[in-house]
């Protein structure tokens, strides 16, 4: 199907998220939409898929006919299906029920028939989906696969994918790309949204670049990376050389620790982490990194082994004991677990400084907030509530809230969803902490980030933990394979 977007405008209050965007997407092609976080990509795609409505003068033309798309139901009737950036599925329900939910038909669905259809479609695309398994036991990649076959089953002729490569393994990405490349042969149109250059370069027939709500231009192969970067940022940006850290005394020592929760068991991990060191945890989501992190932060008790912090035994102790010993944990869900929606930056700084007495010294809090806002380059005022800040600024605020001095900082996806300038800034701040003698452990699904910033890497696969791998001795390819469960005995060994 031929998709034409004409003069698409969208305001969210004062924010002009899409500024008069014109784009023509011919049938049977893979169209890339590239842009930094906050550029307006998701907004544009939500307009096309009926999730939100554009301002009144905008026009959507399908195969030459102007159409009104008021809801996702309308969109799917026109054959437009969208895979959303945050998976819109039902984790506590089975794959089969997720697939069935919302499908047309009689009162009692024919589960057997649908299970067959799932298996058939999965086989066609070489996906492995068990209709009976629960969605919360699937990886992000598998959840995408489920959503893709569901949309195809519903008869989508235009498939929109919003940032599908965030959070999936290298192997799953290969499989996804292979699948997407097959679709244009069947006269399907694919719209692939990403902020990652290498993704659009290796997949798309043409790429439109968005910046601050505007369509800056379109490029066709052969692609010029330099040109892309200029269009995305309006200037040149580089990550710089990888910088190994200076290490000092041992901060954290894990002696044969074992962990378990309802789903996963981790056995006998031995690691020593030194001051100034950055340890990256790589693995598909739910392979055990989360457990490991929670054990290191004292949020969860180990079922065996010994944990020492700077030589002091803290096995089985509470989070507070860990915190006193200088451990700080920044969870991935910033607004749910890290920051308190509704409270201003000033309130946060007052809380974080653990004031004595009952009454709040507002003036002191305010000047503290002003200080930190300046030194952490946060775009906001002392009175801004945290939920009104953009993702990058929320993350800066979290870093600004960290107590000092610290011996161990634990970070879950510290830069997920952030624009590249924020990423660089945040890592610069973190490296400063390392110079002051802190050790860092972080989880990231972005292997490039892991390789860029870690000194050593632990790979997780299904509860197995590799021995620490020196970053300069490994590569994206090797890590990707380990994460997928290949090549364990030769290189990484079991951490036993």
């Amino acid at each position: 199907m031929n998709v034409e977007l004409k003069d698409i405008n969208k305001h969210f209050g004062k924010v002009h998220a899409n500024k008069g965007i014109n784009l023509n997407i011919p049938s049977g092609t893979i169209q890339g939409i590239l842009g930094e976080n906050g550029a307006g990509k998701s907004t544009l795609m939500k307009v096309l898929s009926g999730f939100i409505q554009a301002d009144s003068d905008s026009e959507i033309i399908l195969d030459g006919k102007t159409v009104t798309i008021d809801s996702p139901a309308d969109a799917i009737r026109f054959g437009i299906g969208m895979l959303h950036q945050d998976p819109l599925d039902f984790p506590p329900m089975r794959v089969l029920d997720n697939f069935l939910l919302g499908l047309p038909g009689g009162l009692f669905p024919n589960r057997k028939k649908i299970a067959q259809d799932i298996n058939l479609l999965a086989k066609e695309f070489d996906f492995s989906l068990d209709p009976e398994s629960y969605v919360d036991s699937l990886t992000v990649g598998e959840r995408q696969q489920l959503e893709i076959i569901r949309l195809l089953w519903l008869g989508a002729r235009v498939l929109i994918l919003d940032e599908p490569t965030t959070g999936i393994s290298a192997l799953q990405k290969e499989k996804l790309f292979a699948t997407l490349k097959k679709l244009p042969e069947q006269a399907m149109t694919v719209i692939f949204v990403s902020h990652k250059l290498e993704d659009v370069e290796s997949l798309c027939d043409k790429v439109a670049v968005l910046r601050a709500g505007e369509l800056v231009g379109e490029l066709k192969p052969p692609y010029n990376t330099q040109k892309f970067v200029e269009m995305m940022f309006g200037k040149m940006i580089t990550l710089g050389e990888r910088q190994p850290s200076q290490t000092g005394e041992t901060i954290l020592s894990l002696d044969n620790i074992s962990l378990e929760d309802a789903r996963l068991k981790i056995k006998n991990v031995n690691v020593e982490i030194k001051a100034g060191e950055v340890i990256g945890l790589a693995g598909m989501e739910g392979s055990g990194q989360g457990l490991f992190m929670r054990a290191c932060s004292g949020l969860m008790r180990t079922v065996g082994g010994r944990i020492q912090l700077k030589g002091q035994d803290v096995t089985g102790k509470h989070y507070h004991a860990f915190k006193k010993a200088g451990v700080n944990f920044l969870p991935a869900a910033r607004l749910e677990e890290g920051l308190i929606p509704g409270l201003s930056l000033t309130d946060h700084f007052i809380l974080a400084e653990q004031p004595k007495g009952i009454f709040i010294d507002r003036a002191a809090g305010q000047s503290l907030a002003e200080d930190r806002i300046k030194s952490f380059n946060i775009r906001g005022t002392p009175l801004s509530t945290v939920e009104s800040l953009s993702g990058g600024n929320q993350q800066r605020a979290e870093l600004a809230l960290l107590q000092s001095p610290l011996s161990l900082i634990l970070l879950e996806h510290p830069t997920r969803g952030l624009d590249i300038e924020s990423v660089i800034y945040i890592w610069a701040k973190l490296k400063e902490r390392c110079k002051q003698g802190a050790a860092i452990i972080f989880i990231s699904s972005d292997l490039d980030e892991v390789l860029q910033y870690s000194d050593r890497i632990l790979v997780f696969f299904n509860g197995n933990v590799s021995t620490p791998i020196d970053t300069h001795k490994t590569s994206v390819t090797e890590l990707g394979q380990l994460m997928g469960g290949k090549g364990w005995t030769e290189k990484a060994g079991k951490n036993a």
Partner: protein
Amino acid sequence: MTVETILIGLAGVLASAAPIIFAVLGETLSERAGVINLSMNGTILLSAMGGFAVAYNTDNIVLGFLAGMLIGALVALIVAFTSITLKQSQVAVGFVLALTCRDLSYFLGSPYMGVTGPRLHAIQIPILSDIPILGVLFFRQDIITYISFIAIVLTWVWIFRTRPGLILQGIGEKPAAVFIRGSNVNLLRYIYTIIGGALIGLAGPAFSLAIRAGWMGTISGLDGIGWIALSITIFGGWNPARAAFGAYLFALLQWLGLVLQPVFTAVPSQVLQVAPFPLMILTLLLVNIGNAEWVERTLAAMPESTRKLFAKLLRAMRASPPAALGVPFERD
């Protein structure tokens, strides 16, 4: 005590649980759709009074039950409108309604205090009622108790076996995901809240026209039942079958309180009468204890075999609420 009297007692347990069954099924539907109807305690009282008054004045029991359902539906409509359309706090609105409806029932009900009115009688189902044991238990009940049995099965089948039921599960879990699948989330929330309210409204007449026939105002002993039904909904893990089990358990405890009174003469009778309430709270605690961090920690320190056993047990009992319970849905 003979076997016969025990059987009759147990049959009475099934009958006296019927109103609670309707209430928990109604609340389960409402909460599955993401709306907490906290007005339940007041709704039950008001519909008990209203249902009785209508049946008394028209001398028509069916109209009495319909009136109860209408009252429940109207109160639920207020809950739905304030929370879904006006996006006000469900807890605050529900709580105020619970108190208002209760006082309203006492005020409007005073002319009917102690009046003898129509009531349901048991219907023996031919052949089935002669089956040993089961006959006495299940087939010599009144019509509303039979309907309560059917309601449990229907609600369960609806939620877990039908297409619309699947959508209902989804709405409570992640409304945005239901929206992209083409459903009108807020309309469905209205419908389920109102149907749930009607079921809750059936609980009132199920008391005042059947097992506790008549209206006795503040001494009817109905005040508090709604709060218990609310906790049984949680105990039931938003599953009609489990919730029904909770309702029967509560009715059984109440009955035991009565029959054990002559046995434990040393225990003041009030203690036995009130005991079911704290016992319900205790079971609630047990069901949800697996969610507590200290339990996790204690378990982690135990030897492997014990740990496994407890973990299994706790997982089997644990129920988590619909993720979007009480959360309004907006497109952007």
